[in-house]
């Protein structure tokens, strides 16, 4: 504050420095008060519609935000600090791209110039199978009309918040099946939640206090920032993985991150993994899982293994669940917790079905009580018990899904290769991790975001830039291919080509 200096000189004679600083501060305060009183009041409408809704938030200008914050703290009723940070416009490309694609969605027939959504890892390849099952089975499932009697009593009343035993049984069986049958999951260790999102958050609430941290390998699913940090106050410490070894996790890197964080006074409570990995799509080997468990034992911390893509395998490798390694080695099971859900493998994200699977009785006890805030809806539970118990259907679904995933993956990756865009080696997931670093103008996050913007606004395709996933190397993009039909692939490739037309590397592609 430049005012202070001359004023200090003025009051040097009497009262000195104190008055010299007090007076300008007081003046500044009164100036603000004057400005605030003369600011025009916000108009009230009746009843007022919310002036901001999510899609528009990205366009909110930032210039007024400082004054809003200030006026919010005097006169207007206050909201919590947690809420203030969540209410801010979402600047992450991950969310901006999702919004843009949903506002102008591509449709081969009705909206061929719309934005093609490659930023949402949804699996649409096997809907026909689920639809068929629904139309053949539905009347009985919702209302329990097994013996011709309508029975809303069974689903209308209060259910156990952590899920009915029937669904836990069915889910344990399904998880075992989908992970290759190498592990048996106990229904009594299953806690059902309204999606994997609250499963992750609930586990964070159980395993860490505010101010503690989890180590998380990068690149990681952008949603973790929300799931872990929004309300729990727990931090995420990135453990960087690099393309030189296909983004494999290294214990050395884990150890370094652990020690660095501890030096800064923050306690690490656990490691948060996704296996199969999102966004890279690679798997953790048995040896690696063992090494991680060993590391966790040494540091006495938890391991959360998010295995939500376990059933979305297309490669030749076999998926190994953390549970499998635990089973056969003598590790303390109390530190391991697995997250699962039906949003990816069974394409039912709208139904909100997630799982916390833990070996720790105390965690299970706490998590069960916490599910009152995020339970699975009863009609959905009833429906899923039917579906998951239909062994013939599940068998067919898993087989067909794998086949179609393999097909789409192969086509998409080959197509990108044709544009001289290579993808990381991957065996699972609904996406590929594409290296477009040769197409960015400057090898930096800025360059990456410029390309992302071009792809979104010129090419009209929404892909997720690596920076949104905290990738340490610029130029990588996650492209989900399971929302496409085969005919859409050439369209996507053409649009990429068009968007980067003047980039020499592309034109010189072999």
């Amino acid at each position, binding site marked *: 504050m430049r005012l202070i200096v001359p004023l200090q000189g003025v009051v040097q004679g009497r009262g000195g420095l104190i008055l010299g600083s007090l007076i300008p501060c007081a003046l500044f305060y009164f100036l603000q008060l004057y400005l605030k009183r003369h600011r025009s009041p916000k108009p*009230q*409408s009746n*009843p*007022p*519609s*919310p002036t901001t809704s*999510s899609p528009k*938030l990205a366009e909110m200008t930032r210039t007024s935000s400082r004054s809003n914050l200030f006026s919010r703290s005097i006169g*207007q*009723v*206050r*909201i*919590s*600090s947690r*809420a203030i940070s*969540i*209410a801010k416009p979402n600047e992450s490309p991950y969310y901006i791209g999702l919004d843009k694609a949903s506002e102008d969605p591509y449709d081969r027939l009705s909206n061929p110039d719309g934005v093609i959504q490659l930023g949402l890892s*949804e699996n649409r390849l096997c*809907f026909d199978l*689920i*639809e068929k099952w*629904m*139309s053949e089975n*539905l*009347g009985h499932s*919702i209302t329990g009309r097994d013996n011709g009697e*309508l029975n*809303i009593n069974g689903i*209308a*009343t*209060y259910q156990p918040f952590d899920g009915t035993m029937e669904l836990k049984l069915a889910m344990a069986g399904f998880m075992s099946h989908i992970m290759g049958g190498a592990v048996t999951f106990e229904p009594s260790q299953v806690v059902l939640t*309204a*999606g994997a*999102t609250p499963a992750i*958050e609930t586990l964070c*609430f159980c395993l860490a206090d*505010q101010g503690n941290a989890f180590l998380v390998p990068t690149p990681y699913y952008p949603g973790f920032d*929300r799931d872990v940090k929004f309300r729990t106050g727990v931090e995420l410490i990135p453990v960087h993985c690099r393309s030189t070894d296909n983004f494999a996790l290294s214990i050395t890197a884990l150890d370094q991150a652990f020690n660095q964080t501890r030096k800064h006074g923050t306690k690490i*409570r656990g490691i948060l993994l996704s296996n199969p990995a999102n966004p890279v799509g690679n798997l953790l080997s048995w040896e690696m899982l*063992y090494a991680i468990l060993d590391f966790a*034992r040494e540091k*006495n911390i938890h391991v959360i293994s998010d295995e939500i893509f376990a059933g979305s395998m297309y490669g030749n490798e076999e998926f190994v669940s953390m549970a499998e390694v635990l089973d056969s080695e*003598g*590790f*303390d099971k*109390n*530190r391991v917790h697995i997250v699962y859900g039906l*949003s990816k493998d069974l*394409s039912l994200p*709208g*139904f*909100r079905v997630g799982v916390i699977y833990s070996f720790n009785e105390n965690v299970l006890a706490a998590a069960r009580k916490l599910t*009152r*805030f995020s*339970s*699975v*809806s009863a*009609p*959905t539970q009833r*429906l899923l018990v039917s579906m998951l118990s239909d062994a013939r259907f599940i068998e067919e679904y898993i087989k067909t899904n794998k086949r179609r995933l393999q097909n789409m993956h192969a086509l998409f990756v080959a197509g990108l290769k044709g544009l001289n865009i290579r993808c990381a080696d991957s065996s699972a997931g609904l996406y590929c991790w594409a290296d477009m670093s040769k197409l960015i103008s400057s090898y930096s996050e800025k360059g990456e975001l410029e390309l992302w913007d071009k792809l979104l606004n010129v090419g009209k395709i929404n892909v997720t830039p690596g920076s949104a996933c905290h990738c340490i190397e610029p130029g990588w993009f996650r492209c989900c291919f399971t929302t496409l039909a085969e005919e859409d692939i050439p369209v996507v490739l053409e649009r990429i080509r068009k968007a980067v037309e003047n980039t020499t590397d592309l034109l010189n592609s072999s």
Partner: protein
Amino acid sequence: MAIEIEKPSSVRLSKVAISKTHGEDSPYFAGWKAYDENPYDEIHNQSGVIQMGLAENQVSFDLLEKYLEEHHEVSSWGKGAPGFRENALFQDYHGLKSFRQAMANFMEQIRGGKAKFDPDRIVLTAGATAANELLTFILADPGDVLLVPTPYYPGFDRDLRWRTGVKIVPIHCNSSNNFQITPEALEAAYQSAESMDLKVRGVLITNPSNPLGSTIQSSVLNDILDFAVHKNIHLVSDEIYSGSTFSPSEFVSIAEILRNRNYKDAERVHIVYSLSKDLGLPGFRVGTIYSYNDDVVTTARRMSSFTLISSQTQHLLACMLSNHEFTQNYIKTNRERLNKRYDMIIQGLKKAGIECLKGNAGLFCWMNLSPLLNEPTRQGELELWNIILNQVKLNISPGSSCHCSEPGWFRVCFANMSEQTLRVALQRIHKFMEQRKVCSVNQ
């Protein structure tokens, strides 16, 4: 690879995980355990514990069943399931527009059209439990305070405090004026918080009240709103029992108060609603936050990612609640049946010599057993509660678990059982009171 047998370590859990704030060690929940172990059944276990501690509405199931039977398409996305794909993929935290519209209409109907609701201000959550917690996260920081009038729903101790770190300071109400909230009580609670150096962020009222079973009067609502304005704090009105008032004219929503004031000061008001009580569908997990504050709506919506309602359920209920004929009939019939039940239990209790607070809503009545206490203390109340649970075999909720400042009051639910079961319960109470009279005569 050598197998290392790791000794069970003390891998640490969080403070939230080990805290007792979930409250499940209190008598409120101990009674439930007793019921679970020996549940009454009309045919198979006539000496079991009758559950009168669960505020669940089972009196109007038949109406729901009839609707579902006549409208198959509601649960099946139509023949060949054309709408299914879109529905199964729908995880937008805005919620289905058709469902929000249907909820807004339903809420308006319940209020006899005396308030209007904008579907874009509705944020959906998986139950009112989640709605209350979510609002608390948004309105207050850890260590801040919400003022809540006593007696209050025991679940608030958990829902408002457990993960949020927010504190509750009670607004004491007593029987001298039928437990109404007074400006003096509001001020006293506020001062109490201030004296502990705590920041008050809002008042949370339940209207109609749980456990009192009565609606809050218009003048009192105005007082509370004035208080909130004066202190520049929020007002949350949990109106989860609004459709369970026995007579439609007796319920005044905070929405009406705001409308009368032309929505001045509305940005501090938030309403919580749910289908668990009025529609008897707690298993469906359907709750809403209705806020007049844009920032709260935006933030709540984003936070609702942790507690979304299944799109299947949204679809089913959107159809059901858009059916005007169904909702009109349901609301009217449900009210009548609840009223009838209420009359039945009040008469029954009166015959046994027990007085209740004059109620006009909800699934329970607020019973005064203070004359029966050995000593007018919390201990005395718990002793009596124990006798009623273990000898009379009725699980009722002691006022102390609702933080009532006067011992001897109990909440008794009447809508979660058949009329026959209610008669059995009343017989048991009658017998119990008779026996006590005999005892006291012989002393």
